[in-house]
């Protein structure tokens, strides 16, 4: 079997056994990227030459001494809003087009300690604001299952790269669904950890009370493995939780779901839901029942409010976080400005794209005098109600299963002129961020047009093991993860 098709688990085993060298691995991925990348455009910046140099060095050292870490020699793609020392980190924005971070994000330091190989930085909607990668300053990525369709966003480049076998695994970030929605659109696995589970140090901040980094992988086991590496407390992120990191692969041992209560929230199965998605998810719920799960109807009555709450809070936080891009210390600076105010205003005009400007405007508005209570304060209060819905539900059930998105991947250009329609496409993923709880998206079927359909498994805070168990049991029974996109 071609090396690029292997999962992280499989490739690592071959490497650890000395059956393939790191150089052979990078060579195989280099060929694959050469073939498909012109069509998929998952990367903002490829680093395979550097990866090759590292691989050769690794192989040389391993000749004398063979001890392998999980990620050693594994070509991994990183979303381009996660800082990599010495490698540009652009956020797919003109503002940071030439920015080279002087330090590594904590997750990157952890990967580097295991001697992973950075194969490239992946495309995103500018500053992670969007659902399709169409808001990237460097042009959109494509869905490997159908090049006319978006890969989802904002981690669309990472999801497309994993789906097209351009890397063995990837990291993304998820503020309102940016790992799970593109994973669902591209037919791969995406996990958003509990808020605080993974350090955000070195992740370019979008909405700090919602952002989390997480894995995008070819199967559930790989997600468990990669999460185990990146999770944990970090003194550099005061919101990271001091909670021990379990061995997540232990959660994959049980192949049944006996004694497990699975909640199905009726609010997720309403008009806006595409009939093919509904069918696929309903069939998947049937499978969970076959596996021994106890299926229960539940209610999350404030689901309707999630998008509105999110677009107030996320934009408010973004307007504050993005104030740092002022043309003074790093990033773009506009030329020929007459004074400091002019320098700020022109730099931000030239550096930010339309979606980022729209968000900054909205966020500034809802925080401004006279509107703060009506919008920001109100949204924070309704956020509490959304959290309470989940708390109540999790008294009755152990996990909640929903569709990951209301439709399969949409066409490029279909929603890019209508921001509100684009926002509403995140309706199933956003409430999880508001509540700060973990969720995983994984494939559960295909539309007649051949596009992947994703389901979402949501768990209690710090119970990643439970959602991994459910996802893994389902995946092994249903085997959707073995289907590969037709692209070559």
């Amino acid at each position: 079997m071609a090396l690029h098709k292997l999962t992280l688990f499989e490739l690592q085993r071959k490497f650890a056994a000395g059956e393939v060298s790191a150089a052979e691995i990078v060579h195989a991925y280099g060929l694959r990227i050469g073939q498909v990348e012109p069509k998929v455009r998952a990367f903002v910046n490829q680093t395979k030459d550097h990866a090759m140099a590292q691989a050769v060095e690794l192989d040389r050292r391993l000749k004398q001494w063979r001890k392998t870490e999980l990620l050693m020699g594994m070509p991994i793609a990183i979303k381009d809003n996660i800082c990599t020392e010495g490698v540009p980190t652009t956020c797919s924005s003109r503002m940071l087009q030439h920015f080279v971070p002087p330090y590594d994000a904590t997750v990157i330091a952890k990967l580097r300690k295991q001697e992973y190989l950075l194969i490239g930085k992946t495309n995103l909607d500018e500053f992670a604001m969007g659902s399709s990668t169409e808001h990237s300053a460097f042009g959109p990525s494509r869905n490997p299952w159908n090049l006319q369709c978006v890969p989802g966003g904002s981690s669309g480049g990472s999801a497309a790269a994993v789906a097209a076998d351009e890397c063995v695994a990837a990291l993304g970030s998820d503020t309102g669904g940016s790992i799970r929605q593109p994973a669902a659109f591209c037919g791969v696995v995406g996990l958003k950890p509990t808020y605080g589970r993974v350090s955000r140090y070195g992740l370019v901040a979008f909405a700090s009370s919602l952002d989390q980094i997480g894995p995008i992988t070819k199967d559930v086991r790989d997600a468990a493995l990669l999460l185990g590496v990146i999770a944990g407390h970090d003194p550099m992120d005061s919101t990271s939780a001091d909670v021990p990191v379990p061995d997540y692969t232990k959660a994959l041992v049980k192949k049944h779901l006996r004694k497990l209560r699975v909640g199905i929230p009726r609010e997720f199965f309403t008009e806006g839901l595409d009939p093919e998605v509904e069918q696929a998810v309903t069939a998947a719920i049937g499978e969970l029942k076959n596996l021994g799960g106890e299926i229960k109807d539940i209610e999350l009555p404030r689901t309707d409010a999630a998008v509105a709450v999110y677009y107030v809070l996320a934009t408010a936080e973004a307007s504050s976080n993005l104030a740092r891009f002022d043309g003074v210390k790093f990033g773009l600076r506009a030329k020929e400005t007459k004074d400091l105010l002019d320098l700020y205003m022109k730099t931000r005009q030239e550096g930010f794209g339309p979606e980022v400007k729209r968000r900054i405007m909205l966020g500034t508005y809802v925080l401004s005098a006279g509107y703060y209570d009506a919008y920001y304060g109100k949204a924070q209060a309704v956020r509490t109600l959304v959290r309470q819905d989940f708390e109540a539900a999790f008294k009755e059930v152990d996990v909640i299963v929903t569709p990951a998105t209301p439709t399969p991947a949409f066409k490029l250009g279909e929603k890019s002129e209508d921001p509100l329609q684009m926002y509403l496409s995140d309706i199933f993923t956003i409430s999880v961020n508001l509540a700060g709880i973990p969720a995983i998206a994984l494939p559960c079927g295909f539309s007649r047009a051949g596009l992947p359909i994703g389901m979402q498994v949501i768990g209690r805070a710090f119970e990643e093991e439970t959602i991994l168990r459910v996802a893994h049991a389902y995946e092994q029974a249903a085997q959707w993860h073995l289907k590969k996109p037709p692209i070559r």
Partner: protein
Amino acid sequence: MKIAREQVEHVALLARLRLTDEEKDVFAKQLSQILDHVEQLNRYDTTGVEPTATVIGQVNVFRDDEVRPSLPVEQALANAPDREGDGFHVPKIIEER
């Protein structure tokens, strides 16, 4: 909520964003639409409900005040759009009289 063009201009100044005339018109329309959607939050009674600012329930996280190495000056300045000596160079902000 109807947003007037003057409001867009006011907010843009607060946000330190220069906008073209066209952008002002487009944003006035789009922000109005988005805020109309946000109005539905008023359907929810939130009297007495504590606002959520963060889900983790931590307040302050302290650490010892110890001297540690920080980013070297050259590295800190490496991304500077304009520098002078060991500093960032910016246009004059104090008027001469």
